[in-house]
């Protein structure tokens, strides 16, 4: 039947345009990390912060700030040579929820070092947050 299928398609498009899954992922991670006594009130405060940040164009309260990204990079790079392999880079982005499992990232042959990793993580996070 045409009508229900297009409603399902409508729902999927809605999820994609508003990045609902990333929003819910972020809320769940924040909740599990902070473990507040009253989860509903805490979620309300987080959402209000996001709303205000969006309206006043203040930088968002990012979950992974710069020191966390550096720490993560250092964990991945266990030989300390300052670069990580392409596979590790892709896995890391997947773990952070910043890329889908089947998104094809181009391996342009250049090594991935810390500034490049930081830039990519920040760029993707910014992309997600701007659509909230």
């Amino acid at each position, binding site marked *: 039947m045409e009508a229900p299928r297009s409603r399902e398609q409508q729902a999927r498009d809605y999820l994609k345009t508003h990045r609902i899954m990333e929003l819910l992922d972020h*809320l*769940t991670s924040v909740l599990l990390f902070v473990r507040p006594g009253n989860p509903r009130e805490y979620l*309300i405060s987080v959402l*209000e912060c996001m*709303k205000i940040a969006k309206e006043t164009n203040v930088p968002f309260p990012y979950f992974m700030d710069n020191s966390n990204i550096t720490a993560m990079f250092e964990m*991945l790079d266990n030989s300390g040579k300052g670069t990580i392999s392409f596979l590790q880079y892709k896995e890391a982005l997947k773990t952070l929820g910043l890329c889908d499992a089947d998104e094809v990232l181009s391996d342009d042959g250049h090594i991935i070092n810390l500034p490049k990793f930081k830039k990519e993580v920040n760029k993707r996070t910014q992309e997600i947050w701007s659509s909230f």
Partner: protein
Amino acid sequence: MDATTAPHLIPPEMPQYGEEKHVFELMQTMLEQLLIYQPEDPISFLIKHLQRDNDNVPKIVILGPPASGKTTIAMWLCKHLNSNLLTRDNLTERKSSSVATEARKHYQKFKGWILDGIPETREQALVIQTLGIAPRHVIVLNAPDTVLIERNLGKRIDPQTREIYHTTFDWPPEPEVQDRLIEPEGISEQETAQKLLVYHRNIIKLLPSYPRVLKTINADQPCVDVFYQALTFVQSGHRSNAPFTPRVLLLGPMGSGKSLQAGLLAQKYGLVNVCCGQLLKETVADKSKVGELIWSFLEKKVTVPDSVILKMLTERLDQQDCVQRGWVLHGFPRDVDQAQRLDGLGYVPNRVFFLNVPLDSIMERLTLRRIDPVTGERYHLMYKPPPTMEIQARLSQHPRDAEERVKFKVDLYYRNSTELEHFYRWAIAINGDQDPYTVFEYIESGIINPLPRKVL
């Protein structure tokens, strides 16, 4: 293995918090609401939704043939759950609203809704669903046609309060009400039979619309029974898809079958079977620090103090396999003190079962245990008798299975059990006096179904 390929070590506080606060269900309802209403500004919508806090309001649909008692049950449930009742009559009275807007309005006022007799056909059900109204519980009342036709003949309505009475089953006590009662139209045998035909035609197509939330209740019993069955159903939650690592505690007197059930659970669900007695022996054999400490007590035939046992248990429960796969604990705690200390250390079980077995069955189970000293095979004189007379002649009994010792241990358990039951208020009591697989099925359903929620 580097940090991306190694399995992630999640601190156990996170899944415990998630389970306790029902984070998964919270996120699931948020996603459902977003998909149904698809607001342009999801953040404000979510803020309003969270402030409303009405995830647990009743959302019930009651269906059934005419004269099955739908309206009576619906009104009683309404009063009990403090919710709103919507029937076809009181909806058609309001001129400008439809089912959907009414139900939505009531949902938003945090009282929930109970639909009586709606939807009647599959088309109506589909329309309601596309508008985003999905009941959490659907009750279908069932009774044989002849009973219904007879019952309908005795139906009487009080025109002032719109309450339904019955000449035989539910006669009002006050004489003023009795005088007021009128016969409603459409209760003759032919009319009821016709309505039943229509009902049967429609209900067959309607039942598959609500696969997981449906329950049929036999309406051919006293009203109060039907009501209580409906109430227990409505107060129980459904199996949710939330990730769940079972941390099971089995409590019961000696001989109630704890080790057997723990073994079955460990085998079927991959949980780690932590038997306190067994663990003690293993730790001593390991000759670790704790093991040496325990051995020093056992040598002198003194009971091992609680702190040492707790230290040994915490070591075991902290290991990665217990955290990831879940555990089944039995043989500990034996009294409230131990239970409180276990709780204090953060090892809170999420399902607790009390296996109740009467003393006679315990005596039967334990005092008839025998062991064959030659082959080492264990027998039971009633449940697993030895095959030949020769073997039976040489069987011997373990001293701990002697009658006095068993009685002593069972007494010890019962002295502490009332306090333990009070401590684990939400524990599930199971009759352990049945065959092992029946008991296992009861335990399984206790683990898989969510704990019953008290009505708000």
